[in-house]
């Protein structure tokens, strides 16, 4: 935050008539401007908003830079895995099952004789897709529901809060075992849908609390008093002020959704073969951990780094958006 308080003294403006005052005011203004620029701002520097301030903080934060680079790399190989892995993750050769590192196959082979390196690279796509889509879905559903409940309060709020409590009571893994075991599709969407279904209450609570806090600010009342409609108050005056904690929690949650996808796949209810996913590979490899630990370590390592990167990013974003927490 820049220095909040320019000097209180506006100079001796004593408006007597409009014509005369203008001159007084402008001549006085020159002095005021000088004072303002005295407190650390360059003359050309533009006014900064919360977001541009946060961005400034982030750019200087090594945690953000490291995690950001990892995530960029992940997104890159998720979109274009062929760039660094030429093989086919589904072409396997049983004769090479469980073999270790070889030229051209640096990470060795799986129990089915597939190339671990290729599968690990291709596995990023499932993880990133699930993580990003689930987070977006959760953030949108949670913000909309929580925001509306917080803004309007009353009966709808009570209903939503109880529904939230019910969803909070469902254990994620148990819920996944029950709900996803009936799904036969091998695409990522049932998994994403399940995560949105169980994940939105977390965001909804945060959004609701944040909106209630912001709603009580005078500027929202002022907007109402000056004739703003409900939708304008919500979208222009409440939401931009209330969205920061949602972004922080959602970024951190992204990492946990990726881990959750792996957990569900490991349990056999998440993504299913022929999908390529770190969770599936970890699950397959865990049976052979004593003979061929390389099959487990590579996908597990990739998963751990990915989750860590997103959680670090969330931390950095939180620090930037709420400097008081540091």
């Amino acid at each position, binding site marked *: 935050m820049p220095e909040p308080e320019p000097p209180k003294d506006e100079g001796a403006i004593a408006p007597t008539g409009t014509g005369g*005052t203008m001159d007084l005011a402008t001549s006085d203004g020159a002095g005021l401007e000088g004072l303002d620029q005295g407190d650390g701002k360059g003359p050309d520097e533009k006014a900064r908003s919360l977001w541009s301030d946060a961005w400034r903080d982030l750019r200087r934060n090594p945690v953000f830079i490291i995690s950001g680079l990892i995530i960029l790399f992940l997104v890159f190989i998720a979109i274009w895995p062929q760039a660094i892995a030429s093989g086919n993750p589904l072409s396997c050769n049983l004769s090479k099952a469980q073999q270790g590192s070889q030229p051209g196959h640096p990470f060795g082979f799986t129990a089915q004789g597939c190339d671990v390196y290729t599968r690990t690279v291709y596995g990023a796509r499932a993880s990133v897709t699930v993580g990003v889509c689930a987070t977006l879905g959760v953030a949108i559903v949670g913000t909309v529901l929580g925001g509306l409940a917080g803004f309007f309060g009353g009966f709808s709020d009570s209903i939503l809060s109880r529904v939230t409590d019910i969803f909070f009571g469902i254990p994620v893994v148990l819920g996944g075992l029950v709900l996803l075991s009936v799904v036969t599709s091998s695409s990522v969407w049932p998994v994403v849908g399940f995560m949105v279904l169980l994940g939105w209450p977390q965001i909804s609570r945060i959004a609701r609390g944040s909106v209630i806090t912001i709603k009580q600010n005078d500027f929202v009342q002022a907007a109402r008093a000056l004739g703003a409609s409900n939708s304008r108050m919500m979208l222009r005056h409440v939401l931009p002020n209330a969205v920061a904690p949602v972004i922080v929690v959602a970024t951190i949650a992204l990492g946990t959704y990726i881990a959750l996808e792996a957990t569900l796949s490991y349990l056999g209810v998440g993504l299913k073969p022929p999908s390529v996913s770190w969770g599936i590979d970890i699950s397959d490899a865990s049976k052979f951990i004593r003979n061929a630990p390389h099959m487990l370590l590579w996908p597990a390592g990739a998963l751990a780094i990915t989750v860590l990167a997103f959680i670090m990013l969330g931390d950095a974003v939180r620090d930037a958006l709420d400097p008081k927490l540091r």
Partner: protein
Amino acid sequence: MTIIEETSSVPTPRSGDSDTTPLLEVRDLHVEFHTRDGVAKAVNGVNYSVSSGETLAVLGESGSGKSVTAQAIMGILDMPPGSIPQGQILYRGQDMLTMSYEERRKIRGRKIAMIFQDALSSLNPVLSVGYQLGEMYRVHEGLSRKAAKAKAIELMERVNIPAAKARVNDYPHQFSGGMRQRIMIAMALALEPDLIIADEPTTALDVTVQAQVMDLLADLQREFNMGLILITHDLGVVADVADKIAVMYAGRIVETAPVHELYKRPAHPYTRGLLDSIPRLDQKGQELYAIKGLPPNLLKIPAGCAFNPRCPKAQDICRTDVPVLDPVTEQDGTELPGRGSACHFWKETIHG
């Protein structure tokens, strides 16, 4: 949002059209808050009116209901817990309490605007002041972003903000307290409303800036011939600006008077107490007078006159009968226009 009513854009001369009906009239307004501990009666039958070009000062302690009345007029009371069981708020003869939400919203900002006490918290911290000023035009008149910004600069110049063009993209925290209050005033003025309600516009400011802001407000009011309701607890602020004063206590108006009359000859013991508690240079060294006791708990307002537990003149009748706002006359019975007092003993207070 392109429907523009005929008076919204051009400052039409407003002197002729309000001779018969006042701009705003509050009739027997009651406001209650339903709380866990019972019903708090914040406003108990307030009557007042404002005409174009007139300034009404509403004076009272914290909790006397002056701000709640203003919020009821603006329609920004939180309901629930608040409710308006009784009363009318007439804007040019139309009862706003029976209007639809949309009709009321169109009056807000365009016809009646409000200036808030704390300008920093009343401005949105994530939007630049230029955007917030321009928003008035964009929402109510459908102007483009660019045109709205030009209008915003014009407004900032009108309220004497130096280097308006350079500062239009600044954020509220970059302005000083007095400048922020000017921005609030500019925002309320944007659509040249008929009536402005200023809820303690200078309370958060230091004394030198207070005078500037009050002068600015008075100038602009004169320029646009607006009605102004000035809510304050500061007797010093109103003396120069107001035309008439309504003194509120425990949700009722206890005295009304033209401004100078009130200072000269108060007709209610509460007003007298307020005036006596202003520090005066010629009483240097003496103990400062204070009204004994505390304002009443709105959950259980005392029977009879609400002021009776603190009143030096209280008699038995004050503990049983609620005094009505009687017209105040001279000793010989000649009427004093605009004066009224809700005291059983107003004669003794003003003449005795």
